[in-house]
């Protein structure tokens, strides 16, 4: 193969995260010469998936790389010193991208229309639970058993007694009807809410933010907090119960409820096997490689020169051939020193050379929020969290537990809900292919509240997990955290406007909008990808052709 510098690339894509990979997929049938590079030696960027060894290497490296700090920063890596229960490094696929995908999400439609869905195995996310926290003093014997977990943080826990505090959140009218823990009055209120949520017209994207839906919202606001809280949990929104009274929450709850049953009975969200978003990104890159794109890992963009007229000769020959415009190319230097030329360069902020974004005077003036995350490997399968979705439904591989603790009552007393946002724990069973059998992985996250110290924010994640493990039927020494990785993710607030694709003066260098921190796959990602795809291909394509491909036949010469 000729060297990278011998070609004038139509598109150089920097970074192999989900957005770049979806762009590579979108361009995979365009016959463009595409070079897809990543500064890292692994695929996925901030949406990568790792074995244990890779995860600890990532942790070590991120301690002294400031560049990726734009989006993601490692906080702590911990291995349980008292347990031998960890499997081998490669029996784990731990993902930085555990986003749930609702059945109504545009990404699923795009994966189907681009024929990628046959290469990704989707699994059901079954039950949503709320973990009601009622902390009690830990007895001495209990403390002994939880000793290993305690050393996790170096602090003691107020561990709740395992007394059925895990409640299934009803999300269908059948659920509400069947739930005998609910008082008749509460049942009526829930029924009314579900009815209004379902009957309210689905708002279009325009009216999404500020135009509240009166009926559903009023119904929600009128509910007692203990009843409203589980419903808020269905929104997968990080806001604290006291602050969520926006239209966005209602439409997110609606999305949940309206997704149930779409691809099978009893569930409304799915997750890609083997690492969530990381798997989607890699499968998209594979399709792009089948289309002929060249992949080079371990090389990033070191230098970038805005396009100018190629040379006097080129200009002259272009004029001679009566071309309307002179070819504009961006000159790039890769991190190994190789110089290459490209018509378009696309990436996200962390893939561009340090200082380039500032130098180009691009304004990223969005208020970013910080979310703390942890990935925890648990020594038991927590099977009770994964009841079958329905008689004939698929076995769920995922479950969601929402923790609102430690106390619903604030000390100030005038409000009856806590100020801290909820902790979401997305639990993946070993069916996800992410851990050995007999274990599970908990992906937990919560907003990094500015009112609390960072330690306290991180502590909330540990509290939530300790509570969950204590509330499980196996709350003996068998359920313990074996390993955990904590990190901080920065991004746009959930449902905030993604803003436009940013491009340089020459329009040859483009930047994806800042990603959001949504724990649910953010469909606006596709808008940014589509925008860039259209800018690159221009009149060659109709917008309606975005990610719509016919099956590659086995006779397809681009294939075998």
């Amino acid at each position: 193969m000729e060297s990278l510098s011998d070609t004038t690339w139509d598109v150089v894509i920097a970074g192999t995260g989900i957005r770049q990979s979806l762009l590579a997929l979108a361009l995979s049938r365009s016959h463009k010469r595409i070079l897809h590079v990543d500064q890292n030696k692994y695929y996925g960027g901030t949406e990568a998936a790792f074995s244990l060894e890779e995860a600890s290497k990532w942790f070590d490296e991120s301690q002294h790389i400031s560049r990726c700090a734009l989006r993601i920063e490692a906080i702590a890596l911990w291995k349980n010193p008292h347990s031998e229960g960890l499997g081998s490094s490669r029996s784990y696929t731990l993902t930085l991208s555990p986003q749930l995908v609702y059945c109504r999400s545009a990404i699923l439609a795009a994966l189907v229309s681009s024929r990628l869905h046959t290469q990704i195995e989707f699994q059901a996310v079954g039950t949503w639970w709320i973990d009601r926290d009622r902390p009690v003093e830990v007895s001495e014997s209990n403390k002994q058993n939880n000793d290993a977990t305690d050393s996790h943080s170096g602090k003691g826990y107020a561990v709740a007694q395992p007394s059925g505090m895990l409640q299934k959140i009803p999300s269908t009218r059948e659920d509400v009807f069947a739930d005998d823990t609910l008082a008749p009055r509460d049942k009526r209120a829930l029924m009314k809410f579900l009815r209004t949520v379902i009957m309210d017209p689905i708002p279009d994207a325009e009216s999404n933010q500020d135009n509240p839906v009166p009926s559903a919202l009023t119904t929600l606001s009128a509910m007692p907090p203990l009843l409203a809280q589980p419903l808020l949990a269905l929104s997968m929104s990080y806001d604290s119960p006291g602050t969520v009274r926006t239209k966005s929450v209602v439409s997110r709850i609606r999305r949940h409820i309206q997704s149930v049953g779409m691809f099978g009975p009893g569930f409304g969200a799915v997750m890609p096997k083997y690492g969530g978003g990381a798997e989607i990104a890699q499968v998209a890159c594979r399709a792009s490689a089948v289309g002929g794109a060249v992949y080079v890992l371990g090389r990033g963009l070191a230098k970038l020169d805005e396009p100018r007229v190629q040379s006097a000769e080129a200009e002259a020959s272009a004029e001679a051939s009566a071309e309307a415009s002179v070819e504009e190319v961006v000159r790039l230097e890769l991190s190994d020193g190789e110089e290459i030329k490209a018509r378009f360069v696309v990436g996200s902020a962390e893939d561009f050379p340090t200082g380039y974004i500032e130098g180009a005077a691009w304004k990223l003036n969005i208020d970013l929020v910080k979310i703390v995350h942890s990935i925890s490997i648990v020594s038991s399968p927590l099977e009770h969290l994964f009841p079958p979705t329905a008689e004939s439904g698929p076995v769920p591989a995922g479950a969601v537990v929402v923790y609102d603790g430690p106390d619903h009552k604030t000390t100030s007393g005038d409000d009856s809900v806590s100020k801290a946002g909820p902790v979401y724990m997305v639990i993946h069973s070993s069916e996800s292919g992410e851990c050995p059998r007999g274990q599970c992985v908990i992906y937990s996250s919560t907003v990094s509240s500015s009112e609390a110290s960072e330690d306290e924010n991180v502590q909330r994640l540990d509290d939530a997990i300790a509570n969950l493990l204590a509330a499980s039927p196996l709350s003996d020494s068998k359920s313990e955290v074996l390993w955990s990785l904590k990190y901080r993710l920065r991004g746009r607030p959930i449902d905030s406007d993604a803003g436009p694709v940013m491009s340089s003066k020459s329009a040859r260098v483009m930047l994806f909008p800042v990603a959001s921190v949504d724990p649910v796959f953010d469909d606006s990602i596709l808008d940014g990808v589509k925008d860039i795809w259209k800018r690159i291909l221009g009149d060659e394509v109709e917008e309606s052709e975005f990610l719509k491909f016919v099956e590659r036949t086995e006779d397809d010469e681009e294939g075998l």
Partner: protein
Amino acid sequence: MASRPGAAGRPGGRFAQFKLVLLGESAVGKSSLVLRFVKDQFDDYRESTIGAAFLTQTISLDENTTVKFEIWDTAGQERYKSLAPMYYRNANCAVVVYDITQASSLDKAKSWVKELQRQANENIIIALAGNKSDMVADSPDKRAIETADAEAYAREAGLLFFETSAKTSTNVKELFTAIARKLPLDQAGPRMRQNLRPGVDLRPETSNTQGAGPCSC
């Protein structure tokens, strides 16, 4: 968790799907092996594969057992060492191909085996295929790698081993069948239990009509 029948719903039958990746130096005949296996064809003047190709082939091991291979044929970009990892990610089995008339191609094959054993699934089943056996049938002096040497290496490294010819189809079916027989069809780790799919069909409305035509657009 109780075992369930395969998603394909063959009553009493076992159906398992596995991901297979082909690796090896360029021009050793990776694509030709796949083409022979999948379509029973051979083309003397195949152009080299651009990026990679994806094909499927189903074989029956016995009356009750069907194995479907998703075959990923890689090519061309070995130089950057960046493509293979995304192909062998989650692969259940690999065929590492060399050309028995090219001594250096076995060295390359050995380095692929090493990489697979270091980086891929721990339970990956690897087969070593010495291709182009037809070329030495008439002129034995063209052989650069002795069968016994390659076989000894394969035994030592724990690989299945065949000398194949995509051209005459010698040992091609045998190679893939041997792999299928070695794959754990119902026990083994979660990665292997492809027949117990908790999977979700994203196109439930079309699943009944799928074999009707490959392209409805």
